[in-house]
């Protein structure tokens, strides 16, 4: 039942995604791949589209995946499911549990949770880059174009901030990567 899967999958994402949009990527990846909604390739494309479209990345991904699986009702359901936990938690924090976040116990737990989430996001990023460059486990292959492009883009993204004050924004990086892609992989 696709509607139940969308509801449960995106409630899970909404409940456990700390650290903003990219913080949700590991969990979205896990849910989307386990239900087989998108393959890894398409998922990467959708992350880029979500980043380059206005609005919260998580909402964008939920709308797209919901729509691609079950049309407009699917999009409504997935978006509502990903938003609902955040909505309810803020309502509770502003009404019933006003002091919870200042509590020392809550602070320690959140601090540990943040470190764990940072590790999860970093591992996901490293794994995605490794599979871009060397293929999946079992199908090892060296993709020289991808390795060079990764090195160049990383140098531009992390190096630009040291030269130009504002640096390169994520959307600009995506545009540059798109142009590089057309040049490297051909246009017709």
């Amino acid at each position, binding site marked *: 039942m696709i509607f139940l899967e969308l509801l449960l999958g995106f409630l899970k994402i909404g409940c456990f995604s700390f650290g903003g949009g990219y913080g949700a990527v590991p969990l979205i990846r896990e849910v989307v791949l386990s239900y087989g909604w998108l393959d890894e390739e398409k998922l990467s494309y959708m992350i880029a589209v979500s980043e380059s479209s*206005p609005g919260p990345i*998580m*909402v964008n991904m939920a709308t797209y995946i919901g729509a691609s699986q079950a049309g407009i009702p699917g999009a409504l359901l997935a978006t509502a499911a990903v938003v609902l936990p955040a909505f309810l938690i803020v309502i509770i924090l502003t009404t019933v549990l006003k002091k919870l976040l200042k509590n020392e116990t809550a602070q320690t737990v959140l601090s540990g949770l943040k470190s764990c989430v940072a590790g*999860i996001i970093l591992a996901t990023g490293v*794994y995605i880059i490794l599979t871009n460059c060397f293929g999946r486990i079992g199908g090892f292959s060296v993709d020289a174009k991808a390795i060079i492009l990764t090195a160049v883009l990383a140098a531009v993204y992390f190096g630009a901030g040291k030269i130009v004050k504002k640096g390169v924004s994520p959307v600009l990086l995506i545009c540059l990567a798109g142009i590089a*892609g057309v040049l490297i992989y051909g246009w017709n």
Partner: protein
Amino acid sequence: MLFHLFSTFFIIGLFTFGGGHAMLPLIENACVKKKKWITPDEMTQITVIAESTPGPVAINCATYVGMKKKGLAGAVTATLGVILPSFVILLLISFFFDRFLEIKWVASAFKGIKIAVGILIIDAAVKLLKKTEKQPLQIILFVSAFVSVMLINVFALHLSTVVLMLAAAVLSFAYYLIKRQKTGEAKNDLP
């Protein structure tokens, strides 16, 4: 008032690229400086709440401001306002995206873009890491989470990252209790 909440957050939702964190300065500009709906202190509190609770940062902010101004109706209105642009735009994209990818140069562009996504995810992790404390507990949790997720991916293990997060929360809680017992503090601040 409800209409103002809706239109303000609709515009914020329409003009922020790069997700919720990019939205915070816009929200501050609109809700603190221009409309004076909330105080600078409340804005700081919103940032703390957004960063310590799950879900999209933009939703946390919109819900909070809406709640402050007009209670539950305000919270619903502001949240709907901030979501609506995203929802409509992505719905339109979903209708033609597959056909769009069949065009050769678009497919090539996305092969390049895929590589940028990996870099952006690493960047997000580094930014979050900078904000975390560097005590032994936090370092151990960070390293164990990193190693676990690498192993899960490489060996295609069926272990959810949710389990890792719950384990981290339980361990941090236990650590806090032990630390408190050692220092012999008689504070009674358990929730």
